[in-house]
């Protein structure tokens, strides 16, 4: 694609430079070239050099747009890594539980999906070698994915200006052979996965006090919530995705599930971004473990 663009550029560059130099020499003052019947314009020529670049432009647009569209959705079997950007470091946690700072270990030949958010200002996660870049925005989850094809180490840069140590917010992706990656993944002391950590938080921070079958409070059960449409009290339906669950934890009054009261306190300030991501991993796992029982408990009444 880049090469194609360079060829198009060279074509237009030649189309301007060649006549520029040629006319400059041929029609310099003092030359004997004929100046008879100069043209002051021709609509045919004008339409020509308006249309041709337009067509080439639309072709280039389509080419770029198709490439962009193809890279939008990650493959279903991607490895999941949560990334939190903060002034001035990257904190990462693999779904299997392994945590890293400013380093990302991934296996060769396997798609990796990153879910990214920021704790403070806007950052941007940029790996030049993989041609991926995504602005990391506070209050939002964005996603990016790649599949590394060659083992080695590659730069991670923060490419959106984020303050004093912006140029120090760098790191590396370590692409490993799959076997070595598996070994790396289970090394170290903590074996608690992101979902397990979320489950622990779910109990410790009191979520389970309300979001449970035998609770005295009327709160929705969360089994099977993830990835399903959720009916809100206003009548509209939203997707039960990462962003929805995040907002429900930190801004519970924003979207009320149909059939429930707005009684949940906000956890904004009590949970950091990494903990919210672990809770989401837990809620996601709830759905995957017991799909049948989960649907039975999902409140449907209005």
């Amino acid at each position, binding site marked *: 694609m880049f090469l194609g663009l360079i060829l198009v550029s060279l074509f237009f560059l030649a*189309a301007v430079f060649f006549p*520029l130099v040629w006319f*400059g020499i041929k029609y310099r*003052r003092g030359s004997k070239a004929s*100046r008879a019947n*100069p043209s002051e*314009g021709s609509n045919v020529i004008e339409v020509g050099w308006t249309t041709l670049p337009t067509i080439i432009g639309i072709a280039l647009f389509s080419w770029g747009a198709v490439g962009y569209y193809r890279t939008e959705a990650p493959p279903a079997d991607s490895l999941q890594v949560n990334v939190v950007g903060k002034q001035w470091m990257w904190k990462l946690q693999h779904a299997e539980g392994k945590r890293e700072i400013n380093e990302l270990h991934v296996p060769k030949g396997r798609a990796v999906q990153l879910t990214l958010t920021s704790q403070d200002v806007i950052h941007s996660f940029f790996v030049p070698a993989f041609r991926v870049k995504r602005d990391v925005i506070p209050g939002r989850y964005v996603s990016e994915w790649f599949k590394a094809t060659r083992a080695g180490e590659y730069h991670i840069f*923060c*490419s959106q*200006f984020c303050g004093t140590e912006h140029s120090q917010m760098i790191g590396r992706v370590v692409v490993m052979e799959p076997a070595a990656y598996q070994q790396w993944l289970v090394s170290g002391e903590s074996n608690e996965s992101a979902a397990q950590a979320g489950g622990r938080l779910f109990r410790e921070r009191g979520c389970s006090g309300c979001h449970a079958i035998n609770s005295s409070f009327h709160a929705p059960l969360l089994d099977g919530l993830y990835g399903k449409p959720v009916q809100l009290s206003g009548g509209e339906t939203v997707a039960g995705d990462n962003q929805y669950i995040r907002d429900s934890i930190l801004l519970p009054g924003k979207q009320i599930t149909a059939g429930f009261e707005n009684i949940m306190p906000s956890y904004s300030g009590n949970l950091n971004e990494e903990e919210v991501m672990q809770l989401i991993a837990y809620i996601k796992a709830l759905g995957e473990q017991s799909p049948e029982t989960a649907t039975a408990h999902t409140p449907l009444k209005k």
Partner: protein
Amino acid sequence: MKALAKSAVAAVIRTEGEYAPENYLTAKLGVRAWLGTTDHKRIGLLYLWTILVFFAIAAVAAAMMRIELLTPAGDLVTSETYNKLFTTHGVLMVWFFLIPSIPAVLGNFVIPLMIGARDVAFPRLNLFSWYLFAGAGCFVLWCLLHGGVDTGWTFYTPYSSTYANSHVISMAAAIFIAGFSSIITGLNFIVTIHTMRAPGLTWFRLPLFIWSLYATSLIMVLATPVLAITLALMSVERLWGIGIFDPKLGGDPVLFQHLFWFYSHPAVYIMILPGMGVVSELITCFSRKRIFGYAWVACASMAIAVLGFLVWGHHMFVAGQSMYTSMVFSLLSFLVAVPSGVKVFNWTATLHKGSITFQTPMLYALGFIGLFTIGGLTGLFVAMLAVDVHLHDTYFVIAHFHYIMVGGMVMAFMGGLHYWWPKITGRLYPEVWGKLAATITFIGFNLTFFPQFLLGYLGMPRRYHAYPPEFQMLNVLSTAGASILAAGYILPLIYLLWSLRAGRMAGPNPWKATGLEWQTASPPPVNNFEKTPIVTTGPYSYDAQADASLHMASA
């Protein structure tokens, strides 16, 4: 200014009869007369001196950045200082040099002369606009003396509104006020061009410089208020914690980017359209030809002004806007390239069967065409969605917009300044030195910024104080080029000032050009014309054939 006035007095004495006995420089002397003037020509010169001060400060900031980047480690200045340097460079170059450069200096001086008017429509408002600009400049200087700003010229939230510990508010206030100066100037030009054209000067007989400044003025009037609103909202959040952009306060940080670029992308065209207008004047004069496809070039200016409002989202392909939004903006960005291309083709075609000379202004104009073309073509790279994901926020973008802003607008400004210098001062600059400076600028510019395309492609992010060692060689090349470029800027400063005293007398029309501004004395009298000119033909009634045979006979 005093030297200028004195030399003009000398001009009157030495060449009696050939010049108007009293011109705008000699009419009333003294600081008070200049600061209270409503003469568009004097106001143009006031702007010239003001923007030169800011250009100098911003250039020093750039020089320090280039020296810092000689080595991979951040060792000359601290990170904080480095961030303040690039912010100072960006803010000053954009709002205090480029935006007022051609419109407020050359536009102010030349528009009334070109359309055969005595002044702009609202002379006192014109002076007021300079005072606003100078007032804004004071805020800038205050801010710099108290430590500066470190947000980047883009002021992205929530960094600027919540996290930055620098003088964001005073700098925002400076830009806010400068914005009103540019709105008023734009308004003044629009009314002037509508109501004050000489008899017979119909719209399609206007010089293309007027068309392009008309388009520029429309953008100034329509886009700048949005910038004012955006900066005001950012300040409200910063001062009183009212949540607009910071998600912790319930705001949306990307909203700021939409608002900011809704102004700042059209502002790119404020910074290039006037340059295109200058180039149309230069190419025709120095090839002794009518412009090829007059109406197409004029309408291309208007098309750029309109389409320029619809492409702001291409700054945000990776910033979290929806994929389909990005696609629409990408398509529109390819379309806005077309009228620019049409202009370049028409300039080139104008040279056909001309009688071309390569004086300094022409060298700058040809340099403009070359560099602007490269800048425009690399714009296609960043307009293309899949490619921009990689190039966004890298040095590729830096190189791209410097080819447009510096390779385009500054080359055009220098070309225009040399072209109208004899009209402004009554004296000629030394041609050999002029050609030398134009050539040095062209070479130095390319050496500075071409390596940055490669750096960006290799992945070096912008605004990096320190960088991995593999990028060093290209950075050293770029810094070396910058020192050549600096020589290209210092040289004209010296010989232009020298020419005020010792330059040869220009006479009313040293270029044998056809515009109305050349039909009055140099420097022009206070009221521009002895009597109002009457226009009977279109612009650029040059005759290449006659010119060529004249010079063949003498050769």
